[in-house]
């Protein structure tokens, strides 16, 4: 059904596959950039991923302006200001971000400071405040297949003083170019591949079922679910090139989808679990997704049923009665969780993830104030969330 109104934007150019990294200099030149600031983290430097990208760029006779790798998992305002200062001091004219969600979100924050020509980005917190500003060419290279941050209009940055995670939502945050190259996920540990893969699945499922689903976001979500259904287990188990590039594409497409149609209950609770109990985001998604789907079943069971075709294939879909397809989708996801647990030890309950039962009320309290809960198709209050958490424990 076509919605009465919707908005959709994905202006990021995608480079995906063989020798994608080698094309970065050309893309930068087309964006009138000559001296990029290269952002990454220490782990990627140590395991050699950073060097692979540098080699790919430098062999095209292109030099980066400055490399900065001291980016922690939760970047704060001070660090962003510091990096923006380095950018100016080194006369850089563009940004390359290599990493997971943290590095890419940091780059988005730095770009905000530079393009808006301000010191303090706190006043830009919220949804769609950001104006276009000065154009800072921005290339994102994801090293996990999950966050989709390379194509999302969202950035989360820590406010250390108040200990809050500031959320920025704007289409003006979208990178100019996203580069997906199988070399970037070669060293990804199995457990992280599993966890981030389930995060991508969650993005796609919630994008396909939340309040602002639309034909454009549906197309991306369906393609992402299909790729995840076919490749997640193989990418974790065997780590084949094809499966890894498929998962990276799935993550990117799920990112495009949820960036436009938003995520719901699973993410609202997952964010709270991360904040209160420090459960890694992908692990929280993996644990919560079937429980939240069961909660939403009476409202959007039919939509979950449609997902079955893409997640499990024609045969399973056709052999399942129409009114049972939603439940079957949940069952398939539970089976995926079991398989990933056997392969990597990825926790399947909150208890296994190290969550203390006494923290659950605090998690529920935080979850109902998360922005994602508003677009969940079914109302979820404190008691409802607490019940889901207890079931997932």
């Amino acid at each position: 059904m076509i919605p009465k109104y919707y908005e959709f934007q994905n202006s990021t150019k995608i480079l995906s596959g063989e020798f994608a990294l080698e094309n970065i200099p050309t893309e930068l030149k087309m964006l009138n950039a000559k001296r990029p600031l290269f952002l990454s983290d220490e782990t990627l430097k140590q395991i050699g991923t950073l060097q692979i990208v540098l080699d790919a760029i430098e062999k095209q006779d292109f030099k980066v302006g400055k490399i900065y790798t001291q980016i922690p998992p939760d970047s704060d305002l001070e660090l962003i200001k510091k990096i923006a200062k380095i950018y100016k001091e080194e006369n850089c004219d563009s940004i390359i971000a290599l990493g997971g969600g943290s590095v890419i979100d940091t780059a988005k924050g730095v770009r905000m400071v530079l393009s808006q020509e301000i010191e303090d980005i706190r006043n830009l917190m919220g949804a769609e405040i950001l104006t276009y500003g000065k154009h800072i060419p921005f290339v994102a290279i994801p090293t996990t297949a999950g966050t989709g941050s390379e194509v999302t209009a969202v950035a989360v940055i820590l406010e250390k003083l108040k200990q809050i995670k500031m959320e920025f939502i704007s289409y003006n945050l979208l990178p100019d170019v996203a580069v997906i190259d199988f070399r970037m996920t070669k060293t990804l540990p199995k457990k992280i591949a599993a966890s981030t893969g389930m995060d991508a699945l969650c993005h796609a499922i919630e994008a396909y079922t939340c309040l602002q689903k639309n034909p454009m976001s549906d197309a991306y979500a369906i393609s992402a679910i299909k790729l995840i259904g076919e490749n997640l287990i193989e990418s974790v188990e065997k780590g084949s090139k094809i499966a890894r590039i498929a998962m990276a594409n799935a993550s990117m497409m799920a990112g495009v989808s949820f960036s436009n149609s938003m995520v719901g209950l699973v993410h609202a609770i997952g964010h709270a679990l991360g904040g209160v109990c420090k459960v890694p985001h992908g692990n929280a998604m993996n644990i919560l997704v079937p429980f939240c789907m069961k909660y939403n079943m009476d409202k959007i069971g039919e939509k979950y049923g449609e997902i079955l075709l893409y997640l499990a294939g024609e045969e399973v879909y056709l052999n399942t009665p129409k009114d049972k397809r939603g439940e079957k989708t949940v069952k398939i996801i539970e089976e995926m969780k079991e398989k990933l647990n056997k392969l990597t030890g990825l926790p399947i309950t909150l208890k296994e993830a190290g969550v203390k039962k006494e923290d659950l009320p605090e998690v529920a309290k935080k979850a109902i104030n998360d922005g994602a809960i508003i677009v969940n198709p079914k109302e979820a209050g404190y008691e409802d969330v607490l019940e889901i958490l207890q079931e997932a424990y």
Partner: protein
Amino acid sequence: MRARTKIITFGKKEISKIVLFFLYRAFKVSYYLDTNIEKEIKKWKENMQIEIKTCENGPFLILKKSNNQIKRIKRNDTKSDISIQFKSLDSAFLMLTGRLGVAKAYAEHRFILKGDISEAMSFVRCVDIIESYLFPRVITKRILKAKYKKQKSSILMYVHILINR
């Protein structure tokens, strides 16, 4: 602009002013009449200011929590903690006349939300509850995700809104 469009826009602005006034009064009285609204507002920090703007220069409502009361700020030049500014008067009008819920309006990117999104969630819950009182079931069934169990009758709420206490 055509004369017809001018008249319709004028009408929409005037109706929006009335609805926003009712919304303000509803916030003020429901704080005493509904324990869930009371609980939500009590969690707001002192002097918390929230504004709803129907469009750039259109009718607006600014609410401020002060001494455990909800007050209306009439000046439009103060900085609010949370600002909800609709992208067009027509989008705001859809919401103010019960044809679009807050959740759906947010999902459809109908407004610009400035400030901490998590702080805005409490305000959204309050608006949902108030809409349950102000609009008949036939409307709330369409715009709200769940039926709210009203603690007082809508008639009583309207009486309090009209007598302002």
